[in-house]
């Protein structure tokens, strides 16, 4: 028995017992009880939480990845990876609200790059409550949206399937300007312009008749505001605003009472089922050289729940 006790003591010593302070955690009978201790801590955290918390997720990423869905003569490809670089998110009561409530504002240079998945990810929080009132929109300042999409028949790579990454800049952050559309064939290590012809890079032209529509900015810019321009041999899209801030309507108005309690969790969902489209001129279901292509609007919904 002494031998057994000695061996047990050696095992405990090997795990650091007697050297590690028990202050790091409490002693529980059974793993479920230990989990309960952590649940209690989480309860306290959630119950004590206040203000506004923002999460983001994507839908239709896994189900539609690499699937081409003919729609008339247009073809859409859903991304396998979708990222959003957001500089700020603010709640506003009206389209002309001069005193927005800021959930986070990291600035363009330190934009919050979010890899959107099917699971909600916390992207920002303000522990102070907004002033009382009814909030109708979230103002989202976007640096860029990025998507990886498996494309058939990519002309310059010479193989049938290529994972292409498109990055569309919505605001200027040197050296990339607003409306720049960059493409990468090597997982984002190097980026190129989408050129209008030989010598400028890729042999595709962005569609001049189907500018990216993405989100409609209420009370200002909309799809008709986009124009194409020419610069340095590149065709690119332009917008008069920089940086670009979109006003996304909340699914239901967020009403902040005079004496708010708990925490409102705003959940932002990007439906990316149709995120890149092109006109399939020869009807082969592939993106061929010369096919006009454009970015499709990711449907964004924002819901708010008070906890």
């Amino acid at each position, binding site marked *: *028995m002494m*031998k*057994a006790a000695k*061996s*047990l003591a*050696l*095992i*405990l*010593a*090997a*795990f*650091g*017992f007697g050297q*590690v302070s*028990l202050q*790091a*955690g*409490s*002693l*529980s*009978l*059974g*793993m*479920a*009880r*230990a*989990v*309960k*201790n*952590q*649940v*209690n*801590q*989480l*309860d306290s*955290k*959630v*119950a004590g*939480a206040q203000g506004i*918390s923002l*999460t983001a997720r994507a839908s239709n990423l896994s189900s539609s990845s690499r699937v081409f869905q003919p729609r008339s003569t247009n073809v859409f490809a859903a991304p396998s990876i979708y990222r959003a670089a957001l500089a700020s998110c603010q709640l506003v009561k009206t389209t002309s609200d001069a005193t927005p409530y800021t959930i986070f504002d990291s600035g363009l240079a330190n934009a919050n790059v979010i890899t959107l998945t099917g*699971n*909600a*990810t*916390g992207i920002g*929080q303000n522990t102070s409550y907004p002033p009382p009132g009814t909030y109708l929109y979230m103002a989202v300042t976007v640096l860029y949206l990025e998507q990886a999409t498996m494309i058939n028949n990519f002309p310059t790579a010479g193989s049938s399937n290529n994972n292409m990454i498109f990055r569309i800049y919505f605001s200027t952050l040197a050296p990339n300007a607003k409306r720049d559309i960059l493409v990468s064939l090597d997982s984002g290590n190097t980026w190129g312009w989408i050129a209008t012809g030989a010598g400028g890079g890729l042999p595709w032209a962005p569609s001049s008749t189907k500018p990216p529509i993405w989100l409609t900015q209420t009370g200002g810019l909309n799809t008709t505001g986009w124009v194409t321009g020419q610069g340095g041999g590149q065709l690119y899209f332009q917008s008069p605003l920089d940086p670009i801030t979109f006003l996304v309507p909340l699914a239901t108005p967020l009403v902040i009472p005079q004496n708010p309690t708990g*925490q409102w*969790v705003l*959940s932002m969902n990007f439906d990316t089922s149709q995120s890149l489209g092109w006109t399939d001129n020869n009807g082969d279901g592939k993106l061929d050289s010369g096919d006009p292509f454009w970015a499709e609007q990711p449907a964004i919904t924002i819901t708010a*729940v008070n*906890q």
Partner: protein
Amino acid sequence: MILGSLLFGRPVHAEGTPEESGGGSTPAAAAAEKTSEDIRAGTFGLGLNYPGFGVRYFLTDHYAVEAKGQLEDSIELGGLRVYRYFRPVSRIFLFAGAEGDYVHFKGAVSRGSGAAGEIFGGFEYFILRRVSMQADFGPAYISLVNQDHSASVSGLEYVFNIGFNCYFGGRSAR
């Protein structure tokens, strides 16, 4: 170093002498010897632990895996344990191992899921030839995320486990 020597030390069913396994001709030593012959590769075990159950299988004479589940206060967890057994001392089998669990929970205001991992050391005391009581202890790291991902916690806990096991199958005693 100590853990390494324990993990890779002499096997349970060592070619050791009776003296090495806790005594020569005493009844306790004889019981340990019989038990050690019963608990071998291929042995199944059904266990009750606090507050749950487990099913254990000896892959070899020294290594066993256990699927376990526990339920308490709207906390459900399921996971896998891997045991490394050492040579028996009297009726006591020492072991060390690791555990990984998936956790689903509902608290007073939170709900969600998470994961837990533990390394442990302990012993089984055979009160009958194929029936044992078990106790182990170790540090566990637990990570939980609230359902809407608005909050999360993670931290170290120390877990003491107790239970009873009943073994079946395996090789026949020599």
